[in-house]
C-alpha cells in the first residue's frame, strides 16, 4: 500500500544525482534534534552498523515515537527519514509498515550487504519495539 509520507520523501529525491542525494540527507541530519548524551548508551545502540546508531522510543496516546541518532551524518539523515515515516503510528501499523521508500530513493540497492545489514538491523529493532508494545 502506498503511504503519503513515503511518497513525499520519494518525490524529494527524484532525479537527484548521488552527491545531491547525500547533500539532502546531510541537510535532514542537521535538522534532526540530537539525542541527549545520557541516552547514547550501549543498551540503546544497534550493532551491525558501520557508524554507531542509537534508538529510544516511547508511547504517546497509543502511538509510537522513536528517536534515532547516529554519529555519521548520512546515516543520521536516513534515521531522520525513518522517524518521519514510522513515528506517530499505532504499534500494529508500525509492525505491518512496508518501508518501500528506502529502496525507491536508491539507498538499499546502493548500500553494500554489510551496510544494508546495518539498516536492516535498525528496521528489525523498530519492529521488535512495536511488537513488544502490541501486547
Amino acid at each position, binding site marked *: 500500500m502506498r503511504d503519503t509520507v513515503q511518497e513525499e520523501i520519494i518525490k524529494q529525491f527524484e532525479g537527484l544525482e548521488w*552527491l545531491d542525494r*547525500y547533500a539532502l540527507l546531510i541537510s535532514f541530519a542537521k535538522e534532526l534534534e540530537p539525542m541527549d548524551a545520557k541516552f547514547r548508551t550501549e543498551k540503546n545502540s544497534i550493532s551491525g552498523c558501520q557508524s554507531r546508531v542509537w534508538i529510544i522510543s516511547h508511547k504517546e496516546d497509543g502511538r509510537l515515537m522513536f528517536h534515532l541518532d547516529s554519529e555519521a551524518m548520512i546515516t543520521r539523515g536516513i534515521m531522520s527519514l525513518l522517524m518521519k515515516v514510522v513515528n506517530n503510528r499505532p504499534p500494529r501499523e508500525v509492525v505491518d509498515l512496508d518501508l518501500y521508500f528506502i529502496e525507491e530513493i536508491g539507498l538499499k540497492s546502493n548500500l553494500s550487504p554489510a551496510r544494508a545489514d546495518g539498516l536492516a538491523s535498525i528496521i528489525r529493532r523498530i519492529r521488535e519495539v512495536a511488537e513488544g508494545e502490541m501486547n
Partner: protein
Amino acid sequence: MTGHRKDFPILAKEIYGKRLVYLDNAATSQKPNSVIDTISDFYRSDNSNIHRGVHYLSEVSSERYEKAREKVSSFIGADEPAEVTFTAGTTDSINQVARSLEPVLRGNEVLITGVEHHSNIVPWQLAGARLRAIPMDKDCDLLTDSIEITDRTKLIAISHASNVLGSINPVREVTRIAKEHDIPVLVDAAQSIQHLPIDVKDIGCDFLAFSGHKMYAETGIGVLYTSERFSEIMPARGGGGMVDKVTLEGTTYLKPPLRYEAGTPHIAGAISIGAAIDYMQGIGMDKIRRHEHDVYSYARERLLETDGVTVYGNTGQMCGSISFNLENIHHYDTGLILDKMGIAVRTGHHCAQPLMRTLGIEGTVRASFALYNTKEDADALIDGIGKVRMMHA
C-alpha cells in the same frame, strides 16, 4: 614507472561514470592480465589434482604447483622450497602456527605490537597464550629498547607493516633481540610483501606469513614460510596428501612442505602467486618500492597540508596505507561520498580495535596504494576530500 595501470583491466572501469581511483589495496589488490590469464589457462589446459596421479595432466599440474613454490622460495630468499607452505592466506598461516605451537604457548606469553591486525591477536588467544604489546611512542613507532622478554615469553609475533598506519616495524632489530633470548619470531608480511623487497634470512625470522590476494594473485591462497629449525613441528591440520603411513593406532607424516598441506590445496591459487611474482619481478621490486614511495609520500604530504585533516602514525619508514580523519566529519560519511566520486577507500577500525583504542578513535578513512597508483590518484583523493568538507560546511 608509469603505464602499469593498463595491465589491470578492472582499472579501465568507470564507477558512477567517474574514472576509478582504487585506493583500497590493503584490503585486496587488483589483478594484472598476466595473472588472470595464468589462472584461466591453467583451468583450460592443465587442471588436475596434484601429487597423486599417474596421468599426464596430474604431472603437469604438480610441476606447475611446485614451480610456484620455487618462485615463492626465491622471492623471499628462503634456503629451499621445502620451507614454503601454501595456506589459505595470512590468517590461516598464523592460525596454523598457533595451533602447532599451542602446547608451548598455552599459559605462556606472546609479544606483539600495539598496531596488530586481529589476525595476529586472536589465533594466539585461541591457543591459550597471554598477549603483551611492545611499547610504542605517540607516533606508533615501536620502542625496541623497551622489549622485555620474560621466562614466559615463547614467541614474538609482529607485523612487518601496519595495515592501518602504513608504518614499517623494525623487524630486523626485533629478531636480533629475540635471538639473544632464543625466542622465535613470526612476521606478518600481509602488508609488506607487495611493497618491499623481502629476504627472510636478512630479517632473521622463523615464520613469515602473507596472502596472495594482496600481492596481485588470487584470494584463498597464502604462504607460510617456516625456517628449517621449526621444520619438524606438529602439523596443524591432518588429512590426505600429508601422511607417510596411516594405521588406526597412529600415523607418520611426510617431510615438509607436504606435511603441512593436508587435503587438495588451492592449486590455481598457488600458480597465480607464481604469476604475480613473475609480474612484480618483471618490473623489479626496487623499482616498485621507489615508485610507490614517491606516490605515498606525495599523498601523505598533501593530506598533511590540507586543513582539518588528521593523519595518524609516523615512523619515517612507511608503505601502503595512510589513515586519516577529517575534523568533525565521520569516517563513514567521508567513505560514502568518496565512493560516489569513483574513489574506493576503506573506513572503520580495519580489524585493529586495540590500535583504535590507543588512538582514542572509533575508526579512520584508509587510503592504501599499489604499484599502479599515481600522483593523479592522490590528487583525486585530495579533491574528493575538499568536496566532502564542502558538503558538511
